[in-house]
């Protein structure tokens, strides 16, 4: 994937605008004061995390799994599905056998 690398500036501080953008991505509604507090807290943590940018990691492969397993595959055999009533048991808005939601305005993307 194409990388737009942003270097970690020492002591980078998150602006409220950046916090708002991330909050939107994460679907978290924050009040204005929460946004400000969050900006300060995250900036502090990011400031601590910065240290890893000083390490020499050339030629080091990233670890996505600590165990060396491959091909954990399952046979194409059906199992018993849940009864609909059970599937909907915790639904906040069961409707016509489905999970009711407000209609999305437009599409996902």
């Amino acid at each position, binding site marked *: 994937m194409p990388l737009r690398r942003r270097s970690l500036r020492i002591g980078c501080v998150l602006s409220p605008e950046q916090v708002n953008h991330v909050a939107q991505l994460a679907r978290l509604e*924050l009040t204005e004061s929460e946004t400000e507090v969050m900006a300060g807290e995250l900036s502090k943590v990011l400031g601590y995390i910065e240290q890893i940018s000083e390490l020499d990691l050339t030629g080091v492969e990233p670890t996505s799994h600590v165990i060396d397993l491959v091909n954990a595959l399952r046979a194409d055999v059906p199992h018993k599905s849940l009864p609909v009533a059970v599937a909907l048991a915790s639904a906040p808005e069961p409707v016509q056998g489905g999970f009711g939601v407000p209609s999305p305005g437009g599409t996902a993307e």
Partner: protein
Amino acid sequence: MSADIISLSATELAAAIAAGELSAQEVFETYRSRSAADDCNAYTWLADTAPADIDQHTGPLAGVPLAVKDLFCTDGVPSQAGSKILADYRPPYTATVVTKLLDAGATLLGKTNQDEFAMGSSTETCAFGPVLNPWDRTRVPGGSSGGSAAAVAGGLAPWALGTDTGGSIRQPAAFCGLVGLKPTYGTCSRYGMIAFASSLDQAGTLTRDVKDAALLYAHMVGRDENDSTSLQHPEQMRVPSREDLRGIRIGVPESLLQTDSGFDAGVREAFERTLKLAEQLGATLEPCELPHAPHALAAYYIIAPAEASANLARFDGVRYGLRVAGDEDLTTMYSRTRAQGFGAEVKRRIMLGTYALSSGYYDAYYGTAQRVRTKVADDFRQAFDRFDFVATPTTPGVAFELGAKTADPLSMYLNDVWTVPMSLAGIPAISLPVGLSEGLPVGLQLAGPAFSENRLLDAAYALEQTIGFDGSSAREEVAA
């Protein structure tokens, strides 16, 4: 009678029940009524009564009550992960490790309180109120498995299941004077564990002693076809019996112990005393280098929140859990549900994780952190060429006061500085109570290479028998 029951370990209870010396019904009821009177807020749900057929239960763990951390799904029983967003959620299935233990005869006593979604080191972030440390109720029991730790330490359960992502079993074990085992990643199934950080989460044990840890773990372990990341432990678990440490080589990572997080003098003293004891038992001790371990915490606080931000995206009010309705806009429903359902720490970590993965930042944060992880794991592999185990204090300090670290998230995170490296590397580690500092328990951490649980438990057993740590005082305080 009940005092006798409380004084027995889980292993002893199992034997007594199997021999007909104790009734399972009575054991369950003893623990159940003590738990009902609990003032440490260890439980979020407690069984009303013993199951009607408890005296007919069979299996090696028959009749021994088990407390289970809330984030393990238990069919029909609240499984809330300490969060308002899952308040009173009852799943339609049970986590694999819980099923295995129930199949072995154990009985579900209750679900224990925890930091919300396992994010925390003090069990103060739970939506259902903080948990108190039975050793001193003005202090935290540690977290995130604080409820499980408080239950066992306070004599409310003979043993308990917890989970450990960056120290969430080991640290509460240290704060509560218990044995806490975080096994090799993959040896216990994660199916049914409400996920925090997928590549780090592991089920583990909180027990009074090492033998109980071995017994409980033996019945949890095994490959699960429902968990693609699980594998079969290459060894059979055995009962620890070692009496000394002759031939054992222990490495002490000096540079890791120079930490910013305030190394308490009492903890240091207990740690060094224990190392001397180990030498007396025949172990050789030498300094070892884990050059990247000091950076493990920073990498962890990118990797774990990143995975968590995706794992918690399913909490959107559509299919289960809290929904904040009343607004016809879908996006607002999502954002408000999550804002009201998640606590502050969870939101912080979701934000941190989302940021670390977002466009333009992936390589600098997540990509780099996963490379640090490789180096941390390599450092351990190299250390284990020369050593059988690595030893550290489990935590820099003893149980702190409620509210002492909630104002500064970073100060809370620094609690995990010595437990996180093992989590990143996926290797097993155990916390063993080795003494007191100012009346509060101190833990020693021993870590070994992958799949070394038998040897780790054996070494811990040898130390434990010599130290003779007595946790009974914390158990007596609960109203009978």
